């Protein structure tokens, strides 16, 4: 062993070791500096950011959806109400194998093919993180089965949801409309109107009818619970709470019983009827047949049913009262007569001799009266009661299309009535100006002639006819039809009236108006065109029949309803008000392919008048137990 070298080495090694210790100490100090610098950055410099993130981790706002307002008829019968039910809902993002999950759920509870189709359609329309209902209104047993198996079905949930029940059925569908699941379009609209936040807890939104037009009142204000939640999203405790404010209840002018009577009176016919209070514009009944079951839409409709509703030739989804546009036909005559008087073109006593046709000067074309051989001597009052076409051919020519347009426009023809429902059609009130703009063609004199009896370019909705008739009944006040008469504040429970609107007041010479009214009363008196429909009524009616052509009748050919297929028959029209001394109800009826106004439309109006004015129901109408009033 060499001693010298190892000893020297020992000293050198010890010195080197002490040097290395210092390097080690510096190294550790460096690491500690890095750690404390990082802690300084997180805890001092970024503290505000992280405290905020910790708070948003901890606190979650849980929206609580408000109860939707109820819809009641004028006497408090519930037309639309809420109920809570359990639904089976799936969240796509939480499910690995959707088909396997669906098969598994199908083994536990019954899922119909329709429910499955509806689910797939809703799934295609929603985002991955949204929950989509597979089956609603689960029975207690189904809820129990699903709850017991939930642990092995991630993404499958049973939730208590509020639903809407429209117990009045298909007859009320066109008035109430329906609510449906909020879709992308609804969301976009809500976002644009900055109402998105208020729908955070909501599943449904009004899609059509009153549910749509009064959405803002019916929905209410969403409440928020500020919850402290743990990492798994479980609520630990409530920090604060803003309670939801329920939606406002709506009370309608509409009488559910009257509505049922009107619907019943239609029998097998399709068409539309609207009854107004001529003084307020309140809608007493609004029937569009056929209807549909609005309950189908609440939870998402399955594609088959939707297709059958949408493609049915009867077009049940179209509200005929608002959107059905037809030539007004003879129902325009009272207004034409009034125009003749007011414009100084006719005097009440003036009369013509009707040969059964009218020809323009220097023309051989004959515009025929509906009555072969004519009505003989006809004054203004008789022209209404007999519905003399020839009288109005001549009056129209004397008046000219522009004056006709301007006068009739005051009665709201060619313009939306402003009813509190969306989707109304404005019809068409023709004029020289309109034809130039629309078709870039001049107006022909022959077009004026047929315009005089409400044919040609004229198009009106039953609602427009009802408003014009209301103006004859109330002396010229153009009311805006209103379904809702009052709203109830959910907190104070006080009803607050929602006043109806009135557009303009047409100044009418009372003497002129009374002649026209007499003519309309004559319609319902023996010898008048609709006398049969007034027989035995304990009140007096003023009315006017009309027909709207469906297929053109050739020059010289006669219209014979019995020879035509039903769908080619004329639409029957009837307008009326009663009682005549102090009118409280106006009715406009359109019966699709009804043939004649007097034959099919007037009896329906009579049934409505009877029930409204005397409480009498149609003879064989089954009495339904009145729904208990609210």
């Amino acid at each position: 062993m060499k001693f010298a070298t190892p000893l020297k080495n020992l000293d050198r090694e010890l010195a080197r070791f002490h040097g290395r210790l210092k390097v080690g100490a510096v190294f550790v100090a460096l690491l500690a500096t890095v750690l404390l610098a990082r802690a300084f950055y997180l805890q001092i410099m970024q503290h505000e950011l992280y405290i905020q993130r910790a708070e948003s981790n901890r606190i979650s706002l849980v929206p609580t959806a408000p109860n939707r307002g109820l819809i009641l008829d004028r006497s408090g019968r519930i037309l639309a109400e809420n109920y809570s039910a359990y639904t089976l809902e799936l969240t796509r993002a939480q499910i690995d194998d959707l088909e396997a999950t669906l098969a598994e759920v199908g083994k536990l509870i019954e899922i119909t093919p329709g429910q499955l189709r509806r689910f797939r359609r809703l799934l295609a329309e929603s985002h991955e993180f949204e929950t989509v209902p597979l089956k609603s209104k689960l029975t207690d047993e189904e809820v129990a089965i699903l709850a017991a198996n939930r642990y092995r079905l991630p993404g499958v949930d049973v939730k208590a949801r509020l639903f809407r029940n429209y117990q009045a059925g298909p007859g009320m569908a066109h008035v109430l409309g329906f609510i449906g699941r909020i879709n992308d379009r609804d969301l976009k609209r809500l976002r644009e109107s900055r109402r998105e936040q208020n729908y955070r807890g909501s599943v449904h939104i009004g899609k059509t009818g009153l549910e749509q037009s009064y959405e803002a009142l019916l929905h209410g204000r969403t409440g928020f619970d500020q919850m402290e939640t743990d990492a798994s999203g479980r609520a630990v405790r409530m920090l604060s709470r803003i309670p939801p404010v329920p939606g406002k209840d709506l009370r309608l002018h509409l009488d559910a019983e009257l509505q049922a009577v009107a619907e019943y009176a239609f029998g097998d016919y399709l068409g539309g009827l609207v009854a107004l209070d001529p003084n307020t514009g309140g809608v007493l009944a609004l029937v569009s047949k056929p209807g549909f079951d609005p309950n189908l839409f609440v939870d998402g409709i399955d594609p088959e049913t939707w297709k059958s509703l949408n493609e049915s030739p009867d077009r049940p989804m179209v509200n005929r009262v608002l959107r059905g546009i037809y030539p007004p036909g003879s129902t325009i005559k009272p207004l034409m007569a009034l125009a003749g008087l007011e414009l100084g073109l006719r005097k009440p006593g003036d009369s013509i001799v009707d040969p059964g046709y009218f020809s323009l000067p220097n023309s051989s074309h004959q515009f025929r009266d509906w009555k072969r051989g004519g009505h003989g001597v006809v004054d203004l009052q008789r022209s209404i009661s007999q519905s003399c076409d020839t009288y109005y051919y001549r009056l129209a020519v004397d008046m000219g299309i522009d004056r006709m347009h301007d006068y009739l426009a005051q009665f709201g023809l060619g313009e939306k009535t402003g009813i509190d429902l969306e989707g109304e059609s404005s019809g068409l009130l023709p004029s020289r100006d309109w034809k130039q703009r629309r078709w870039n063609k001049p107006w022909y004199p022959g077009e004026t002639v047929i315009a005089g009896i409400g044919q040609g370019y004229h198009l009106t909705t039953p609602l427009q006819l009802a408003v014009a008739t209301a103006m004859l009944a109330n002396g010229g006040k153009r009311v805006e039809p209103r379904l809702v008469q009052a709203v109830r504040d959910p907190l104070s429970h006080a009803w607050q009236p929602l006043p109806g609107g009135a557009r303009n007041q047409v100044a009418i010479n009372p003497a002129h108006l009374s002649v026209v009214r007499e003519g309309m009363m004559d319609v319902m008196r023996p010898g008048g065109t609709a006398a049969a429909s007034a027989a035995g009524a304990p009140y007096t009616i003023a009315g006017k029949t009309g027909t709207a052509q469906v297929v053109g009748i050739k020059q010289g050919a006669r219209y014979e309803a019995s020879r035509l297929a039903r769908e080619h028959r004329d639409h029957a029209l009837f307008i009326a008000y009663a009682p005549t001394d102090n009118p409280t109800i106006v009715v406009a009826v359109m019966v699709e392919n009804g043939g004649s106004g007097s034959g099919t439309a007037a009896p329906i109006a009579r049934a409505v008048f009877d029930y409204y004015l005397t409480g009498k129901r149609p003879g064989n109408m089954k009495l339904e137990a009145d729904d208990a009033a609210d």
Partner: protein
Amino acid sequence: MPRTSHWILRRLSHLDGILLVLVMVLLGISLAVVASASGQSPARITGHLINIGLALGVMVVIANVPPHLLSKVGPPLYVAGVVLLIGVALFGEIRNGSRRWLNLGFMAFQPSELLKLALPLMLAWYFQRNEGLLRAKHFLAGSALLLVPFLLILRQPDLGTALMIGASGFYLLFFAGLPWKVILGGGILGAASLPVMWGLMHDYQQRRVLTLLDPSSDPLGAGYHIIQSTIAIGSGGLFGKGWTQGTQNQLDFIPERTTDFVFAVFGEEFGYVGAIFLVGLYLAIVARGLVIAARAPTLFGRLMAATLSLNLFTYVFVNMGMVSGILPVVGVPLPLMSYGGTALITLLLGMGILMSVATHRQLNKS
């Protein structure tokens, strides 16, 4: 029983007072934080107390074993560890995609744990034997002793543990006098080989590194842990939210919060002031360890004391760095703070070795 108490006192004289106080303070803090993190669960607290008791017992026993005896344990422990690692490679159980566990029938354990002390002990024993004669060949042999377990653990695969064990071996070679040019050369070579290493890394290892660089890229997966723990630490602020008042902690947002992520709980509830105090305690232990190393009479004692000190802080750095989002998530507990018996016993065993080195000076000199 006066005789018995006298015996105990004499034995206890081998404890280093400064280290003992520092360790006890840290364990006290650990008890408080684990209590808060577990929602003051009596089972957790009792379990922790039992672990602490056991580990302190081990420390006292080891402190009373003279270093020259401890050094003799190195070779057999090292050989046993390597043999077990080979056993793992051949017969080991696969858990979470890597072969780390050896099932002994009555218990499963990770032989890599054993190497955490066995490797420094072996190297220190080897250099002690060749004291005064150290040449290049000794460092080559030392490197080989380091590389065998390192590579075996690396291919389990367990990059985190391999690096930690590699670091302890490297510290020992460094304190033994590994030439600077070798260190620098190795460093440059290592840096150059990083792209190659990246290619050899397993998917999950690459993901961990990527998640570290941008935790928000995987907010619901691996990034969640880092995001939540940095939120916890950052929201603690200067003074913290107070003991048991951390919302990230109490509402379960912090993962593994009694074990690997215990610093997130501490940072949230005690703030930056707490963090400075905690790092200060660790620095004090390291400083005391380096002083013991400087004063140690034997090469074995010097190397062990210095290596154990640096090793301790390396664990502290890797854990805190991971929890505060500057290092990848590797399963390394915070020394003396995290709940967990094995790690605590290993650590206090190391403290025991430090104390043994510190208190057996006179005996060895003679």
